[in-house]
């Protein structure tokens, strides 16, 4: 793990950490190796889910019950804001002005589409055959699992490998498709009566409208703030409005955030840079809370365990296949390399599943969330083994 990699966690280094004066005291020798310290939470980790989800599970109602159901309901507010923040980050990363970026986006979208299709199709068949009592429409359950499986995280662009660099960018961009399709799935799953796709797509446009309206207000405010503190208030407020307005109507805060992020990138001025810079102040705690809530919301039922193993397997196969197909669009990479870089799932899949579980509070959806969480942890472990570690420098 390189020195840069030490701080390449989701959310970056905590800004308050930097405010403290450096101290000369050292920890006991056995705590010094970075991985040990990371495992103990004393240093940032590359895959925060591995650390914070188990903590959440331990604190949740299923174990110690420190995070009671009432406490979790309060934390729903933070989760709505965290989802909006994730969406904004994906939107800010979606810069399609150069031909190279458009090519990478096409490859990422193709890889994500293949993963969603393969995993959804496999689960549609499997759930139909098993007759598992989830109490959810089989097709939509398969789609939800496919969407959660399609997100990936390639770690950091460490500068040593061209493949890794491209894979990192593709991993950033392959979140767009599941977020957008997830915006439709959320509406369909949350509807009290079966809803046709065209109607749900109409609701997706309303979600985009929320993103555009609140995003425009943010654009008008951010660069006109009189102080950094006031700018922080505006950014926090806009994030809360995006997450709150979308969530209040049963729509996807991720989609609304994505739209706002895109808007800030496209509109003139420095709103995108300002937001990216200031979000670092709040993003880290938000992500931690999101993962802890996800862990605490897990219900380790028989259904969840049964869903988990095929999810890991289908996702691995679909990522390899998707990666292989994406190399046809993006010939910088050799066939088969990309998929292995995309095995680590990151946290967007957990975020999607958590949002679905907040919209549809049934035992079936709790099983889906738990399966996604367990599959994410397994995916991170697999990535440690399968991800290429030594490559020729670019």
């Amino acid at each position, binding site marked *: 793990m390189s020195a840069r990699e030490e701080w390449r966690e989701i959310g970056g280094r905590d800004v308050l950490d930097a405010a403290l004066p450096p101290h000369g005291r050292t920890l006991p020798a056995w705590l010094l190796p970075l991985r040990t310290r990371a495992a103990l939470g004393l240093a940032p980790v590359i895959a925060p889910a591995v650390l914070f989800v188990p903590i959440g599970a331990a604190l949740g109602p299923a174990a110690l019950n420190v995070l009671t159901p009432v406490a979790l309901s309060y934390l729903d507010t933070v989760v709505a804001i965290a989802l909006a923040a994730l969406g904004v980050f994906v939107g800010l990363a979606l810069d399609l002005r150069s031909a190279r970026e458009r090519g990478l986006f096409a490859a990422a979208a193709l890889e994500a589409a293949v993963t969603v299709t393969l995993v959804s199709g496999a689960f549609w068949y499997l759930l139909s055959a098993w007759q598992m009592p989830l109490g959810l429409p089989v097709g939509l359950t398969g789609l939800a699992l496919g969407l959660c499986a399609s997100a990936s995280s390639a770690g950091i662009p460490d500068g040593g490998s061209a493949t890794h660099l491209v894979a990192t960018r593709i991993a950033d961009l392959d979140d767009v498709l599941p977020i957008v399709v997830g915006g439709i799935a959320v509406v369909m799953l949350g509807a009290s009566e079966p809803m046709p796709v065209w109607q749900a797509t109409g609701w997706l446009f309303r979600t985009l409208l929320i993103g555009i309206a609140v995003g425009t207000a943010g654009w008008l405010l951010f660069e006109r703030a009189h102080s950094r503190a006031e700018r922080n208030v505006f950014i926090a407020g806009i994030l809360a409005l995006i997450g709150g307005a979308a*969530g209040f109507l049963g729509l996807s805060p991720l989609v609304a955030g994505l739209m706002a992020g895109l808007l800030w990138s496209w509109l003139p001025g420095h709103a995108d840079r300002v937001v990216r810079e200031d979000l670092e102040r709040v993003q880290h705690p938000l992500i931690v809370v999101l993962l802890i809530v996800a862990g605490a919301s897990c219900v380790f039922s028989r259904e969840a365990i049964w869903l988990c193993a095929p999810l890991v397997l289908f996702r691995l196969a679909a990522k390899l296949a998707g990666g292989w197909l994406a190399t046809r669009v993006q010939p910088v990479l050799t066939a088969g390399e990309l998929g292995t870089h995309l095995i680590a799932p990151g946290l967007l899949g957990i975020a999607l599943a958590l949002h679905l579980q907040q919209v549809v509070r049934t035992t079936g959806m709790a099983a889906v969330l738990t399966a996604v969480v367990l599959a994410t942890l397994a995916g991170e472990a697999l990535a440690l083994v399968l991800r290429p570690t030594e490559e020729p420098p670019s």
Partner: protein
Amino acid sequence: MMRLIALAIIVGTTAVVSSAGADVARGGPGTALAIGFALIAASLTGELFERLRLPRISGYLMFGVACGPYASAILTPAMARELQVINGLAIALIAFIAGLEINFVRLRPQLRAMLTMGAVLVVLMWLSLTLLFFVTWPWLPVAPELTGPARFALAGLLATVTVSFSPTVSIAVITESRARGPLTELVLALVVLADLMLILLFTLSMETVRFALGSSQAGHGLLSGLAWEIFGSFAFGSVVGAFFALYLRYVGREITVMLLAVSVVLSQVGAALAFEPLLAALGAGLVVENIAPPEGDALRVAVERGALPVLVLFFAAAGANLHLGALASVGLLALVVAAVRLVLIRLSAQAGARLAGLHGEVPALAWMGLVSQAGVTLGLAILILAEFPEWGGRLYALIVAMIALHEMVGPILFRAALVRAGEVGRMDHPQPGEHLAVAAGPATS
């Protein structure tokens, strides 16, 4: 102009969304919506107030009042309630910041003078108000039929609640004004000390009322309850603060998350154990500042800079939940009591400063920082209402109306005092030796 357009978009979006989803109960996202709306709209209102040379905090409050359920109702009653979710966390964070301001090494030279002034202030005010309420009792709409010891006991109880100050508002005005200097330190010390004394006074007054009215709860665990609330809160906060200081010193990572966790522990766990969250958080900040001064100072600066969203939300929520109905029903009486209180604060503060040997402009301005009333006072009124529902409701209405007045006037007066003392903005530009600027010694004038 652009800000106005942004505000219009935000008000429009919130109004459309809240009306479209009004029939659906969506706790978390509903709270997020209220928070987002309050953060931006209250912040812009605060800026407008600043242009009018008024404290931003008053702007946040006015936004809450104007958009709250008792006025335009853009914030529905449910949203106004949900906004209060932040209250516990905000009080803990604000008190934690106050604790970080108290460095015993810096304060030692003037500690005795501050204690004397605070004690004289509270005792004089309490005695005067008790006497006044006792004499005018038949005209007060609480329980006019009472006579003798019962009437005296209730007058004492009402005096205790009327005397109470708001450490939270005072600290918030200091933080928001980026103020630092002798007046800031004096007011901070006075409100914290008064808060301790008032918990003691309130417990004794309640016990006296129970005895006087022949309540079955009289005599049950008076001392243990007091000890638990005051010393227990400080001890609990000190233990949490000590662990946090050690964490800052030896780990120093993920501090935002840890700070939030500490605030949650102090407010939620503390409240569950019947501790006073304000005292516990104050104790925690105090321990961090005095055990690990370099880390405490750096943490204070960083947290104060990031405290603005918490302040905006806290006061917007307070405004939205201000019961304007109470002001309408007993407003005139509340106005008279508030005026008497204001005069008594000024006179008692002058007497206290003279007895403590403090002189100069700073002690003369201190009374202006003591006018605010908010959460502590409301908490005391709620306790009375819960135990004596037969007349507690009438007393509660009077106190709530007084709080509404003091909450609007207090921050304006304190900010004016800080401006006159030249302390606004000095947190960003500290001057050498400013902490010892209150002249202690025999009064010369």
